């Protein structure tokens, strides 16, 4: 239960083509994350799957059945919205019960299901409250509760954590991952935050301007990005890109090295530079180094490293961790 296949799906709003035809297969039970910069069409793609937008061309299959013309409720999917979209005039209990009530389920059974969902999500004490009386994290859980009571074939999450503060976001990230492990239901998750994508996904779909740039597991994308865009988007801090003579020496237009694959030394190394701003995180220290003839590099040094502004340093890339890209931005192997 819960495999989703998109075939030649495209979407245009009037003359504007938001998503050119694309193919995508989502396996049963997978946690798939659509990631990309804002306006890349990832939310539109999710809404196409949900049925909230009609496809311009192509077909969508869920569990092998063609659902392209089926209305949202009949597709057996549940969605968690960015604004949570809770019904403000209903209590938490009624909010969670709403989809079951619409399905015409017997009230006793509804109560049972709502209570079970509430206990899974730690909402039992809040069932009689209104959404307005809850904190952001609790509202988020109500929205998830409303999704899980329907026992859907797949969950769709549309940037669900973007309205939460940083600490809560980390917690909810864990809770959603945990939920996925327990329910083993297919989940599709849309985010612009590559950290969320890396930490939660079984499979990441990187989108840019409606085009799928690369599909793969987090580590695949990290180790072997297909192009400049994916290389720059996945990984934090961002990969360093170097153009010019240094790149030409490796028969490439651009070469890329991740900050964690650069070695810092005070006496010898490949590139000479001066320390600019340094960011001390305790576990890591990030140095912004102005390297001569190379440009600005971000370098990660493990632990606490005491180097100050203006110090001269040498930077050496790990030889097998340098990526080369041709003039179209594709990786050269």
């Amino acid at each position, binding site marked *: 239960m819960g495999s989703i296949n998109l075939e030649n799906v495209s979407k245009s709003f009037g003359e504007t083509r938001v998503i050119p035809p694309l193919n995508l297969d989502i396996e049963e039970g997978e946690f798939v994350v659509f990631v990309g910069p804002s306006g890349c069409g990832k939310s539109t793609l999710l809404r196409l799957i949900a049925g909230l937008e009609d496809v311009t061309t192509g077909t969508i299959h869920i569990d092998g059945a063609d659902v392209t013309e089926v*209305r949202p*409720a*009949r597709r057996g*999917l549940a969605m968690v919205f960015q604004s949570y979209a*809770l*019904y403000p*005039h209903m209590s938490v209990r009624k909010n969670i019960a709403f989809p079951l009530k619409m399905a015409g389920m017997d009230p006793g059974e509804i109560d049972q299901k709502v209570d079970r969902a509430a206990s899974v999500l730690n909402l039992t004490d809040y069932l009689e409250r209104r959404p307005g009386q809850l904190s952001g994290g609790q509202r988020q859980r109500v929205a998830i509760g409303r999704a899980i009571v329907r026992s859907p074939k797949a969950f769709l999450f549309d940037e669900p954590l973007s309205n939460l503060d940083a600490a809560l976001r980390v917690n909810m990230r864990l809770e959603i991952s945990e939920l996925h492990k327990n329910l083993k239901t297919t989940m599709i998750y849309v985010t612009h935050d590559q950290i969320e994508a890396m930490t939660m996904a079984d499979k990441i779909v990187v989108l840019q301007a409606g085009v799928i740039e690369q599909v793969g597991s987090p580590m695949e994308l990290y180790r072997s990005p297909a192009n400049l865009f994916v290389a720059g988007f996945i990984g934090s801090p961002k990969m360093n890109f170097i153009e010019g003579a240094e790149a030409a020496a490796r028969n490439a237009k651009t070469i890329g090295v991740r900050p964690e694959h650069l070695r810092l030394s005070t006496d010898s190394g490949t590139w000479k530079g001066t320390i600019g701003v340094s960011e001390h995180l305790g576990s890591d220290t990030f140095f912004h180094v102005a390297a001569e003839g190379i440009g600005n590099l971000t370098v990660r040094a493990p632990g606490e490293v005491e180097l100050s502004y203006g110090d001269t340093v040498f930077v050496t890339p790990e030889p097998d961790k340098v990526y080369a890209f041709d003039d179209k931005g594709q990786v050269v192997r």
Partner: protein
Amino acid sequence: MATDHSRLAGRFMISPAVLLLLGWMIVPLSMTIYFSFLNYNLLSPGMEEFIGLTNYEFFLTDPAFFDALGNTLLLVGGVLVITIIGGVGLALLLDQPMWGQGIVRILVIAPFFVMPTVSALVWKNMFMNPVNGLFAHAAKFMGLEPFDFLAHAPLFSIILIVAWQWLPFATLILLTALQSLDKEQLEAAKMDGARKFRRFYYIVLPHLARAITVVILIQTIFLLSVFAEILVTTNGGPGTASTNITYLVYLQSLLQFDVGSGSAGGIVAVVLANIVAFFLMRMIGKNLEA
């Protein structure tokens, strides 16, 4: 935060405005109360004398009073029902994306700018007139007997005219409320399996509750004192069929030159308005709480 000193200064500075407003309200009210206890007829000036509650007794036992009371409530209730149902319907229609939306919205608001006397005259002479009116022509075209609205259904006709005037107001308020509804809520309901009618019933209508309350309260205030429409169309008749309390007060004080009885009627109207307000707030006031 304000210190005690600045708060005191603040009170001192707003006091002229407060006192002016208070006087503005208190002086006419107390004069009306004072007149209502006098035998005060403009045809016999200088003969005023204190007569206690006699004016009230006359006003309240006047057979026209209960007719007027019933008519007032029917008028208010009828107009409210038409404008709320019609307003919700029109707001739903105008919220749909369509060509020329801006112009259509302005056209819908237009009746609100027509003054009551004019609109009542237009309705009386151009629509409801049994000889020249548009409705009469339409009836004749279909081979029916023209219906003399103002003679045979005077109160209903006035309700229709007043509702026509207030429909734009209700539509405008309800439309803005409708536009503030979070579209994601409707989409969530769609995902939850609620079809059009149920989305309206479970999501849109509760969202509109507060706006509907505001429309009811504001309109009630104005509808209790409808006067011009009655004066230019039916003159309260035939008999008392379209006389409301406001019009009855006018009949007493201005047509019979009896200031005392008219004042008593005015005070009765104030009391009635407060009773209506009390019940309204009991019924729907909770919708206004955040």
